[in-house]
């Protein structure tokens, strides 16, 4: 019984913590891309300024 529950908890952890880790990684990547976009936009505005 305890043996079975160990596998069950392992599956639950793998699925939900794995999914959570993927979501966090996606949101972090998204924030990083947004920062890069904002930085480039600022650089372009500076270059265009007379």
């Amino acid at each position, binding site marked *: 019984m305890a043996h079975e*529950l160990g596998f069950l908890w392992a*599956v*639950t952890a793998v*699925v939900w913590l794995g999914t959570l880790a*993927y979501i966090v990684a996606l949101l972090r990547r998204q924030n990083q891309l947004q920062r890069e976009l904002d930085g480039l936009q600022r650089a372009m505005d500076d270059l265009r300024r007379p």
Partner: protein
Amino acid sequence: MKKVAYFGTAVLGVFGLLDIYFALLWSPPERSMGNLIRILYFHVGSAWIAFLAFFVTFVCSILYLLRRNLLFDRIAVSSTEIGVVFTTLTLITGSLWARPMWNTWWTWDPLLTTTLILWFLYVGYLLLRGTMAGMERRARISSVFGILAFVDVPVIHFAVEWWRSIHPLVIDDTGINMPGAMLFTLMFGVFTFFLLYLVLLYIRSRQETQKIQLYKLRERVREIRVELGGF
């Protein structure tokens, strides 16, 4: 956009907690498998959503080749990445179920083997994209790959009929072999995973759009610098 992503993630969190409650506490244990049946709710949900993700890749790949609209390519690559994540979860949860049930972590059963091949095919798809330059060329070759790789999905489905398989089936020729409470839990899990897929696809597709914006903006900055000073 950020607000939508965070709202989606919050709604998903509620459904996720309910799914865990139904799967681990509410649904009854099965006669022969006992509590190990609960693994199935996560395993089957992951597998079905992985197949859905690859089906979306397949459809978007066809649409790209027909319409040459890069939006379809962005959805295809996003869906593939999510499909690979869910296939990975399917393989790991299957292995964790197999250890106590079959006394082995892995066996070269047709269903397992063809699913592993599927994982390799779509990891190959993602790696292949990384090696190619040129948006149009990359989209065209990826689309062809996405269509060809999908051939493995029906092979997985029919693997049980074509070859001898020891993998249990939830749905067979006689219908769904499950009591109502278990079926409800399974379907709730599949719906939760479907919501998860939609949220992930939205976030991931937006990222692809941002990447293209970034690429175009970099090119524009380079052009302006050349125009200004020639460096």
